[in-house]
């Protein structure tokens, strides 16, 4: 399969963000000075208009008691929005929930994704079929699967989750999943993991397929069993992939929104609120745009900080 050989070749050859820009094209390619800019212009203007400008503008908004209705005037209030956000118990709760969601779902997706990748890698038949099936939830819309999980975790005894779990004897009576904070989280965590496994599985699988068979043979000669080979050969060789998956999933975890917004709406008592659902609620339900902007900035700062720390870590492990 040509597609696969390309995949595992790439992550190794092309360095991560640290990658250098391409070698200068040299004198062979002659062009007028403005030609590169013409190539950049359409895409870059769109990007500046909708990404860069809003980033700056949001910073500005966050210093105002921003009024959105026509005819009202906004008032400069300095750091007041930030002070109020940092004083807001619901903000801290939503942040804590976001972190917890990230930890739970990242571990779930990585462990199960890796385990499945190892199995799919070793199985002799229907490799591609399994890969496709596990990937199916990834391509399904978040809105659809959110409603689907809401239905599956219905409080009714005929709800699929209630029925299966009571039949298996794991539950003694049907549960009103959405009424309690803990059980509401079960729905959201399960959905997050179920939907994400396929993605990490495909990436791990590509990495596994890049490991030369000889290494396993050598380890086997040294007397390593299955588990020993996994620990001594597989894990070290997919470390870069593992780190990549980790970073990408953490960034993704912090952006959890649709499932919470549609399944619990943050309730009960804001206890399943996550940062983005809280931000959206304050901005578009209360019309506290300055407040929402401040929440956004704090979240972005956290995510960027985590990304930087992880990139440092990447580089360090590369240098070792």
């Amino acid at each position, binding site marked *: 399969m040509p597609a*696969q050989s390309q995949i595992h070749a790439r992550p190794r050859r092309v360095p991560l*963000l640290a990658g250098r820009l391409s070698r200068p094209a040299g004198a062979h390619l002659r062009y007028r000075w403005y030609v590169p800019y013409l190539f*950049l212009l359409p895409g870059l203007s769109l990007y500046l208009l909708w990404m860069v400008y809003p980033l700056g503008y949001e910073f500005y908004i966050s210093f105002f008691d921003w009024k959105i209705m026509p005819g009202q005037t906004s008032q400069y209030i300095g750091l007041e929005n930030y002070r109020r956000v940092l004083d807001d118990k619901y903000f801290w709760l939503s942040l804590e929930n976001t972190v917890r969601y990230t930890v739970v779902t990242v571990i779930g997706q990585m462990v199960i994704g890796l385990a499945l990748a190892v199995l799919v890698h070793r199985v002799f038949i229907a490799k591609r079929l399994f890969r496709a099936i596990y990937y199916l939830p990834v391509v399904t819309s978040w809105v659809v699967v959110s409603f689907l999980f809401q239905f599956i975790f219905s409080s009714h005894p005929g709800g699929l989750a209630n029925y299966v779990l009571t039949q298996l004897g794991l539950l003694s009576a049907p549960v009103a999943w959405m009424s309690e904070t803990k059980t509401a989280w079960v729905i959201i965590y399960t959905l997050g993991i179920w939907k994400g496994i396929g993605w990490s599985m495909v990436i791990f699988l590509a990495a596994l397929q890049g490991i030369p068979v000889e290494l396993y043979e050598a380890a086997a000669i040294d007397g390593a069993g299955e588990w020993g080979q996994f620990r001594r050969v597989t894990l070290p060789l997919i470390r870069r992939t593992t780190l990549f998956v980790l970073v990408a999933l953490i960034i993704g975890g912090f952006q959890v929104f649709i499932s919470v917004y549609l399944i619990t709406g943050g309730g009960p008592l804001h206890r399943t609120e996550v940062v983005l659902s809280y931000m959206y609620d304050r901005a578009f339900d209360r019309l506290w745009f300055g407040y929402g902007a401040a929440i956004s900035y704090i979240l972005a700062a956290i995510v960027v900080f985590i990304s930087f720390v992880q990139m440092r870590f990447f580089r360090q492990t590369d240098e070792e």
Partner: protein
Amino acid sequence: MSILPRTQRGFQITILIILIAGAVIAVTPMVYMVSTAFKPAAYVPEFPPRFIPSNPTLENFRTAFASRNFDRAFFNSAKVAVATSFVVTALASMMAYAFARFEFPGKTLIFYSVLAMMMVPTMMLIIPQFILARRLGLQNSHTGLVMVYAAGGMAFNMFLLRGFFEELPRELEESALIDGANQFVIFTRIMLPLARPALSTVAVFSFLGAWDEYIWALTILTDPAKRTLPIAIQNFRGAHATDWGLVFAASLTAVVPTVLLFIFFQRYFVQGISTGALKG
């Protein structure tokens, strides 16, 4: 299998059993959705749950398409997704080509600035983007959707395509240059056809992203005639007593094209997300 040693055979069977069990868990929710879509009006789940409807019916699909501009929403989503896919592929490939093949002042700065923005969660910009859309009169406009989707996907796709362009041999362009072709001709006649696999990956992912996008569409579209599929589905859910059969008939209509796309372009999906491993 018969050539395998006995222990290997046992091992394979164990793996298969685990994988099949996993696959069952992965698809059960989807199957449940499909079967509910074909059941008559379902305000509460059936007890006991059934995967094969006892009286299969197309009624839910009929009702869904007869109400609330659902057919319109389907068309709108298709339009927005195709447009986004086209715009992203065109603009990102141009940018990628510039970074891959040209030297110009500010190159490094621009490149890394674009990349750095990839770390910013897209949704955090929804407040200023909303205000901007309002200023530009882009509320209730599909142009507003396409622009934001395209801008949001620009950096990643540009990065993906740049990697692809860099790997293409330079000799092709050099000979074309000698023949007197200009850069635009080289780009459109030589580079783009060569980059078809990478462009397909970008096109498919952009299409899917736009097809499924929810919150930006929810925020700027209020005109029912403009709504996209995710919003239309939500409206079926929204009423107090939900007819789940209807919700899932609508959902299925939205999901089937993405699944077909996935089956036909499986190769590009795998390629796209694995190349995504560069994203970091």
